[in-house]
């Protein structure tokens, strides 16, 4: 199970991993450093300037302006900051929840194990978006948050992160459970348990280190899915709400000016597509590097897209 030391080396040999990782790194760098640099050049992604609405790309505005006269280039980077942050937080929370539940199932055995895995199956099968539409409409004040916090941008982010994690944990949980059961069956782990090692110690010392690779794979794939999910929810007006930009809600506005400025609809979507593609490529490459045997005869590792039309996790 000690795949970790050579993981990086094997990863470097796969063709798609490097461009995907480079693209993600470049995007992260651009959305972190871009907005302040853009402001340094006098580009404004927030101030409304109705005299310069829907300007074409040109000198001083690399991609033109949006329907309120804000600089599209800076706004794309600022939106990317939100979208990537939500993706990262959501994927990490889903991975954390999935790991804990998967470990619990593996250690608990029947009947809790069976129950947890059935729940995981059912959550994976549920119609994600219709349920999220209902859940996102819950009034935060009704669950005891004060009015100021309830209308803040922080809450928008927190809501999406919690919602996607609530539906995203089963993929990781199943991987973690399967991996943990395999490790628990190994001779040295059985010996450790026979010598009286506490379950927590076994989990931390023996099981978790061996699960680093599958958890990383699941988190990377989840990152793309969460970014996709955030964009859909924000596009529908149920995620990040304006004036805070995200790639999803920028497309809501773009739809309204589709006939005057079709290019506005191009950029945010291209960035989402590029980011999600990079995450999926990197996740697949990581999976192949972590388990080369499976890669050689790889058959049906179905994609995890539940936001589009996918199914299997």
């Amino acid at each position, binding site marked *: 199970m000690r795949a970790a030391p050579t993981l990086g080396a094997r990863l470097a040999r796969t063709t798609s991993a490097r461009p995907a990782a480079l693209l993600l790194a470049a995007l992260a760098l651009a959305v972190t450093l871009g907005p302040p640099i853009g402001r340094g050049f006098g580009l404004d992604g927030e101030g409304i300037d109705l005299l310069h609405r829907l300007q074409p790309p040109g000198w001083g505005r690399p991609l033109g302006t949006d329907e309120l006269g804000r600089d599209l280039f800076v706004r794309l980077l600022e939106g990317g900051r939100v979208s990537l942050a939500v993706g990262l937080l959501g994927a990490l929370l889903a991975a954390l929840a999935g790991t804990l539940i998967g470990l619990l199932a593996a250690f608990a055995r029947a009947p809790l194990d069976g129950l947890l895995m059935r729940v995981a199956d059912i959550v994976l099968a549920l*119609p*994600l978006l*219709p349920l999220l539409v209902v859940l996102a409409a819950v*009034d935060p004040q009704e669950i005891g948050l004060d009015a100021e916090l309830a209308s803040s941008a922080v809450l928008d982010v927190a809501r999406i992160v919690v919602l996607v994690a609530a539906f995203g944990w089963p993929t990781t949980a199943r991987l973690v459970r399967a991996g943990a059961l395999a490790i628990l069956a190994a001779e040295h782990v059985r010996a450790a348990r026979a010598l009286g090692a506490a379950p927590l110690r076994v989990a931390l010392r023996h099981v978790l280190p061996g699960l680093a690779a599958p958890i990383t794979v699941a988190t990377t794939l989840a990152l793309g899915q969460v970014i996709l999910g955030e964009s859909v929810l924000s596009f529908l007006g149920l995620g990040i709400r304006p004036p805070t930009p995200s790639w999803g809600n920028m*497309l809501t506005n773009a739809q309204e000016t589709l006939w005057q400025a079709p290019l506005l609809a191009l950029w945010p979507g291209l960035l989402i*597509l590029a980011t999600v593609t990079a995450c999926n490529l990197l996740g697949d490459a990581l999976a192949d590097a972590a388990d080369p045997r499976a890669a050689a005869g790889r058959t049906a590792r179905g994609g995890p897209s539940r936001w*589009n*039309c996918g199914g299997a996790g």
Partner: protein
Amino acid sequence: MGTYLLRRGLETATSILVVAFLLFALLDLMPGDPIDLMLAADPRLTSADAARLRALHGLDRPLVDRFLAWLGAALAGELGYSRLFALPVTEILLPRLLATLALVGTSLAIALPLSVLLGAVAALRPGTRLDRAINLLAFLAFSVPSFWLALILIVVFAVLLGWLPAGGEPVGPVVGLADWVRHLALPVTTLTLLGLGPLLRFVRAGLLEALREPCIRMARAKGASTARVVLRHALPQAAPALVTILALQTGGLLSGALVVETVFAWPGMGRLILEAIQGNDYNLALVAVLLGTVATLLSNLAADLAHARLDPRIRPG
């Protein structure tokens, strides 16, 4: 088989009940209950009136009591009224359901044979340029934001080329088949392209595995044509996995339909759910979402049973 059927049936029924209860409980957490909305509409109502109205409609009773009352009525076919449309919920649901079925059914009817064709082409020549191109198509279908694909199709075919309407349903005194085709073309294309992703991957993987079997070499040696080898010998072996994928896709298809119907203003169930939530019409939203959930869980149950039929190895008990 009998006990398996019973166990899976009970599981499905329990899941439906749990989801129904959770959705029902959520309604309490929505902004503005019906009485609040009445208060907002009529300033003469006092808080005593509101309390009396709440008691009259049973809104002051415990959650579990209200849920059981609602469930009893729902099982008797009494689904209540929609506030937004001022109509019985059942009357609103039927045409919306048909519109969604038309959209989803048409795109599945295209996506399924198309994915078998492309998957077979890819699986017969693994590693070639054609195989890689087909894989790329499946990969992009996984990664593309559904609503953006819809917007781009509108930009290309409605804004730039002007060939097709950007959305809506055919209206007018005489609506012919051609009108329906024109209005369904873009939404169906979007949903088909999105659905191709998982289907293609699974068909290709399933066929690739099946084509390695000795019986395939035997069939080839006896002179069977490629088409016959794929359709008669390889595809039936890949069928159980395909059935599972199709069923697991029901939930995803509903998610896809919600987005596609919203972007193209198609009057289906998905858009209805969004409209109901935005219009504070929670009874309608509850019924519509629950209907989608029931359909999804039942199709999963059907797939499990079909799978057990098709593949004797997994038949338990």
